[in-house]
C-alpha cells in the first residue's frame, strides 16, 4: 500500500518569493506522482505528473517538481509566486499497475501569498 505525506499544512510567502511544497511517499515499486491545486470552493486542477524519465517535470503556470527516489520525495517548486497561486496543493501517488488510476492524496498544503 502506498502512502503520501505533506509535512507542511500551511505555507505563507510574499508575492515574488520562491516556494517549495514538500511531498514524501512510501512505496517500494514503480510509482506515478502528481500534483493538483484546489482554489477555495472549487474542484481540483491538474498541475503536473511524473512516471518515468527526466526527474524534473514542468507543469502549468511556472510550477515544476522534482522526483527523488533516494529521498522518496516529489517536491513542488515555483521560482516567483503570484497572489493567484494562493490555494491548497495536493500531492497524489499511485502505484504499480494502477498507475494514474487509483490515486492516494496527501492531506494538502495551504499556500497563502501575501502582497
Amino acid at each position: 500500500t502506498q502512502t503520501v505525506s505533506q509535512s507542511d499544512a500551511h505555507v505563507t510567502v510574499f508575492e515574488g518569493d520562491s516556494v517549495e511544497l514538500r511531498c514524501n511517499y512510501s512505496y517500494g515499486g514503480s510509482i506515478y506522482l502528481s500534483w493538483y491545486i484546489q482554489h477555495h470552493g472549487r474542484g481540483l486542477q491538474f498541475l503536473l505528473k511524473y512516471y518515468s524519465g527526466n526527474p524534473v517535470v514542468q507543469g502549468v503556470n511556472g510550477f515544476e517538481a522534482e522526483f527523488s527516489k533516494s529521498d522518496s520525495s516529489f517536491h513542488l517548486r515555483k521560482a516567483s509566486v503570484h497572489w493567484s497561486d494562493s490555494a491548497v496543493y495536493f500531492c497524489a501517488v499511485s502505484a504499480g499497475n494502477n498507475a494514474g488510476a487509483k490515486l492516494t492524496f496527501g492531506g494538502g498544503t495551504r499556500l497563502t501569498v501575501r502582497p
Partner: protein
Amino acid sequence: EAGVTQSPRYAVLQEGQAVSFWCDPISGHDTLYWYQQPRDQGPQLLVYFRDEAVIDNSQLPSDRFSAVRPKGTNSTLKIQSAKQGDTATYLCASSLGPYAEQFFGPGTRLTVL
C-alpha cells in the same frame, strides 16, 4: 470544451435521509471517479468506473453507498441513510483512460445534521 459538471452543488440532510449526487463527465472520457473529501483533508477515492463497469469500489461503504454508470456516460452516487460522518464534499472526476490526468468537477458539499 465543457468541464465535469455536478449537481446539486449543496445538500443539507437530517441523519437517516437519502441523497443522490449526479455527475456528467467530459464528453468522451471513459473513466469516471467519485471521491469523498472531508473538510481540510485530501480527497479519498470511493469508486471508479471504466465505461459502465466498476473497476474498484473497495473504499465504498456498501451498506449505505451505491454508484452506477449505466450507459458509460453520466453517473449517480447515492447515500441511502446518511450519517453525520458523511458530511464532506463529494467530487467527481473523469479521464481519458485510467492513466491520464483527472479532470474534477466543482463538487457537491453535503452537510448531515
